[in-house]
């Protein structure tokens, strides 16, 4: 059963990953592959839109932890947007909001990247 998907699109020159469904230890590799693809293409300004992300377990959080240093050392960032409260609570429990840009809306992330 396919309960997760990640799609890539480009908006205002930034790479955006749209996450759909449930991100757990089984589906995390799909997100990992998508992030690796972008990094291999030297895309370091990445927005992850979580509006259709219904669930996240620590394996999903681990993917964001593994690649943030790479993109930041290239002058970029991974910004997370449009999270529902349930998903945000998991990030919050582990202290992500102090180390990651978690923004209300995709446009906030685009503005943050553009105004640097």
């Amino acid at each position, binding site marked *: *059963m396919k*309960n997760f998907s990640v799609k890539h699109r480009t908006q205002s020159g930034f790479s955006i990953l749209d996450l759909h469904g*449930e991100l*757990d*230890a*089984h589906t995390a590799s799909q997100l990992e592959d998508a992030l690796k693809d972008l990094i291999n293409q030297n895309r370091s300004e990445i927005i992850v839109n979580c509006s259709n992300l219904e*669930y996240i*377990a*620590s*394996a999903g*959080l*681990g993917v964001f*932890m*593994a690649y*943030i*240093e790479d993109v930041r050392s290239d002058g970029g960032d991974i910004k997370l947007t449009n999270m529902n409260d*349930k998903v945000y609570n*998991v990030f919050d*429990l*582990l*202290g*992500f909001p102090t*180390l990651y840009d978690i923004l209300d809306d995709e446009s906030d992330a685009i503005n943050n990247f553009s105004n640097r």
Partner: protein
Amino acid sequence: MKNRVTYQLDISASTSNLSEVRNFIGRHAGKNGFSEKQIDEIRLAVDEAVTNIIKHAYKNDESKTIDILLIFTPKKLCVKLTDDGKNFKLDTYERPDLEKQIKQKKRGGMGVYLIHSLMDDVSYTRDNGKNKMEMCKNRNS
């Protein structure tokens, strides 16, 4: 409700079964009066525990089995997980130092912390070559 209601699910040790485990918990905890928020918390804690068993006790050997037992009582839900894999330590459950882990590109340790944060009681025993983990959520928590 009756004093004690139990449900059992056996799964093979594959992460492809995690969504089935979450659905199993959600279905029965909902029917037995837990709130949506409590169900979300229990689901995540059990997902993390089952993931740890698959990865650490069984090293992703899909021929192995994990037994999941839900016990509802008037005061709480207890989830018992049994496996016959390798004994692995889960005693440390401090909040992971994210900043340090990111610098070292290290993952892990988060699941155990989540389990202890989301459930009211967590215990582990090793008995007859089996790992038994029990985690409980009080109805009033």
